[in-house]
């Protein structure tokens, strides 16, 4: 029965561009993004009459690496098929894909579940196919005068990863995607930063109701957004006693909504049949050549063991290849000494600051950041100053200005802790207490907030440079002295 409080069930079909040098069936370069339309094309990827596909072995080897990392069984013999449909971006009017004999089947990927533990999302299959070209609409897609076709993208190798409906929330779907992205990047077969390198179709249902397919999701955030929208939409329908139609909807990223797709009558019958221009794909002898690098789960466990990272920090740091590499670069010089501070500062502070500025970790100089961590470790600045220094460095980076060292910034802004300079702190404490008799009274009456208030006042007076431990001790002493 339809139930608005029913369980959310999500399955994903993820298409990723494999980061090979040449296309799947011809020698054209895949590095097309910065070049003009139709400049990376040849008779094969243009689908000119008489041209035939010749399989790029590298693409298959990349896909096999993925299949193995996803714990799939790689089939000894798989097959390419033609998926026939008419669309102007599809030069041959069929897509060469894999249908009933995919490259690999039956694997799993572990993600962090909503309940906090690890859970397995089963992988149904992994297969390889070619990307179609791209339509460029002149004006609005419906009302524009015409559309142009760019075949640069045609023939880029794609891997399609189909999951079982094992995710239970939009958040889990996002986590699955993040984990998948990390895995693909660790395997060096995928560049998530290339525009259009990921496309997701999501199946979502609520127990007891029909399932809805949401197509055309092109970002990691988009998956969570689209599914959250769908959960609300579907639950509202159920609450109003309406039925959920089994349908295909499209995600409009800019508006954050899904929209009903075309009606059933015009749905395609793809008329799949084996691609007669390619031989069956026999990969048995290549399987033993697959060497997997350390994958995110293994690296996470190593971070916990080797650097004493917390589970959460280890998860965050290993969730992105570049982040994990950055962390290890920072602590390389002094593993024991820096790892605790570095993991906290990267996972809890740096990531937030980067996100705020929409900057990638690869724009940060590890040595410069290490300098900051060292100063923090020496204890000559406060955490607050640490953040200030980091922000200065990031701003300089973003503006393309010369970047100062952390030590230089400490000096220029005079951020060194007033530690040891008990006199300055004592003066500030005396001033703070004298200026706030109400706080003193509250403190005496046992109001908890009063002490914090006074700490804040003293911090302000020392411009954040007071060592918090020392400040606390001296303040308590001063208060005690007044009681006496």
């Amino acid at each position: 029965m339809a139930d608005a409080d029913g369980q959310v069930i999500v399955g994903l079909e993820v298409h990723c561009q494999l980061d090979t040098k040449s296309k799947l069936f011809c020698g054209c370069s895949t590095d097309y993004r910065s070049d003009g339309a139709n400049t990376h094309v040849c008779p094969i990827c243009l689908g000119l009459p008489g041209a035939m596909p010749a399989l790029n072995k590298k693409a298959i080897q990349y896909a096999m690496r993925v299949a193995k990392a996803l714990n799939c069984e790689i089939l000894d013999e798989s097959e390419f098929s033609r998926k026939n449909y008419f669309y102007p971006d599809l030069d041959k009017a069929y897509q060469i894909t894999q249908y009933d004999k995919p490259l690999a089947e039956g694997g799993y990927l572990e993600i962090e579940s909503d309940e906090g533990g690890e859970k397995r999302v089963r992988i149904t299959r992994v297969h390889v196919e070619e990307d179609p070209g791209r339509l460029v609409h002149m004006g609005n897609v419906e009302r524009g005068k015409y559309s142009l076709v760019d075949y640069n993208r045609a023939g880029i190798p794609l891997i399609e990863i189909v999951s079982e409906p094992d995710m239970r929330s939009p958040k889990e779907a996002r986590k699955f995607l993040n984990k998948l992205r990390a895995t693909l990047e660790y395997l060096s077969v995928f560049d998530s930063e290339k525009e259009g390198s990921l496309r997701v179709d999501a199946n979502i249902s609520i127990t007891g109701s029909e399932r809805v397919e949401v197509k055309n999701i092109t970002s990691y955030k988009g998956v969570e957004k689209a599914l959250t929208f769908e959960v609300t939409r579907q639950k509202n329908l159920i609450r109003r006693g309406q039925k959920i139609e089994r349908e295909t909807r499209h995600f409009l990223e800019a508006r954050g909504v899904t929209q009903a797709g075309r009606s059933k009558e015009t749905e395609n019958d793809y008329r799949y049949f084996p691609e007669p221009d390619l031989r069956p794909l026999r990969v048995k002898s290549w399987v033993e050549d697959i060497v997997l690098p350390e994958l995110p789960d293994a690296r996470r466990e190593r971070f916990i063991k080797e650097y004493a990272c917390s589970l959460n920090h280890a998860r965050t740091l290993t969730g992105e290849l570049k982040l994990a590499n950055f962390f290890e670069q920072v602590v390389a010089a002094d593993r024991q000494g820096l790892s605790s501070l570095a993991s906290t500062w990267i996972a809890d502070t740096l990531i937030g600051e980067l996100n705020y500025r929409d900057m990638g970790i690869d724009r940060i100089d590890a040595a410069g950041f290490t300098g900051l961590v060292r100063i923090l470790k020496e204890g000559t600045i406060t955490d607050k100053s640490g953040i200030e220094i980091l922000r200065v460095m990031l701003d300089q980076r973003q503006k393309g200005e010369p970047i100062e060292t952390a030590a230089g910034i400490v000096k220029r802004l005079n951020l060194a802790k007033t530690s040891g300079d008990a006199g300055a702190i004592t003066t500030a404490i005396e001033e703070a207490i004298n200026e706030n008799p109400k706080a003193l009274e509250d403190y005496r009456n046992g109001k908890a907030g009063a002490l914090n208030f006074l700490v804040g006042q003293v911090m302000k007076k020392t411009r954040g440079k007071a060592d918090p431990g020392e400040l606390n001790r001296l303040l308590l002493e001063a208060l005690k002295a007044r009681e006496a």
Partner: protein
Amino acid sequence: MAGQITFEPDDRYNAFLATCKTATHGSGKLAGVAVAVKDNISTQGIETTCASKILKGYIPPYDAHAVGLLRASGAAIVGKTNMDEFGMGTTTENSAFGPTLNPCDTGRVPGGSSGGSAAAVAAGMARMALGTDTGGSIRCPAAFCGIVGLKPSYGRVSRYGLIAYSNSLEQIGPMAKTVKDVSDLMGVIAGYDRHDSTSRDKPYAHTPSADVKGLRIGIPQEYFGAGVDAGVASVVKSAIGKLEELGATTVPCSIPSMEYALAAYYVTCTCEASSNLARFDGVRYGPAADTKKSWHDAYQEVRRDGFGPEVRRRIMLGTFALSSGYYGKYYAKAQIARENVRNDFNRIFADVDVIAGPTMPTIAFKLKEKSDPLSMYLADILTVPANLAGIPAISVPCGKSEGMPVGLQIMGRTFEDERVIDVAYAYEQAVN
């Protein structure tokens, strides 16, 4: 460039769709030899239409692999020959640019679909020609026009640049007046090509030998059964008798799977064709779509106007057969029938070296004689088994019936193209 030849033929048979008035050539084995190329084989810079309106004006930017080999051997490509549109036919009447006439009798068809290539050779306009054979399209016109034509083993000649009609069945092959020329041309075009994943590393470097002593020839009863014209059968039987005189022995045999061969053939080729020909939509080449219409309507219009009736018929048949729910009933079944044909040949070839019979059940039809499609399809019954099995088959002229040429067909084991060449050569040498 080693030289050039002038090519201004008196093409009274409508054998050519395009000619090269001055054809340059390099040096090599075929230096200066005039070679005609069927119009479904891509030739860089020379219009290639598959005898279809939908490709009118299409000038390929690249050479088919076989054409590149031809050029490298010094051959002069003198023109593109007429054919049934996209290779779909047995008469060359299904050309959008008018039928080719049979040089032996202009009231008759030259056979098809490589009718233009056969007529060009038979009339002496070109010494050699490339044809393509999907279900008999080299051997049928060779038989009807009285020349030699070889359908190579599947995979022996690269299909790269051949505008696909039915990928799993077709091969490019040589056509000429003599077995020696056919053999020489085969030597140029055969071999592995990395652009064609179905091609095999089986180059051809053979000098024909006329020795057939001790050769065992299988004679399938089906090749002399119902539907085979008595006059044709008797000419072919006496040709086989000639081979016996030369020292070969004959062994009666049977190919029971032939009962389903024609059906398997037509299901396979129409299915593949429906997909292969889907790309002709007026977007990238050929007559452009009317851009004021939505793309879907424009596609329909371009394809309705651009394809001839036989092509439309086969596209629709194939589209239907591949539709959801019908795949298992048609395409998958056809592949089983195909496997049965292969098995029958394997069984027979365990005992004999080659199989011989007529190439075509009749002599060349009169123009417009085969007006209903089914009776035309039936004419392919003796040629399609070799395509279904992927084995080499040659047609060599072996006499006349009613004054028209008759072809003796010799089929061999896969990749034993040399042997069928030798048998044809032995016969040819014995009678000339």
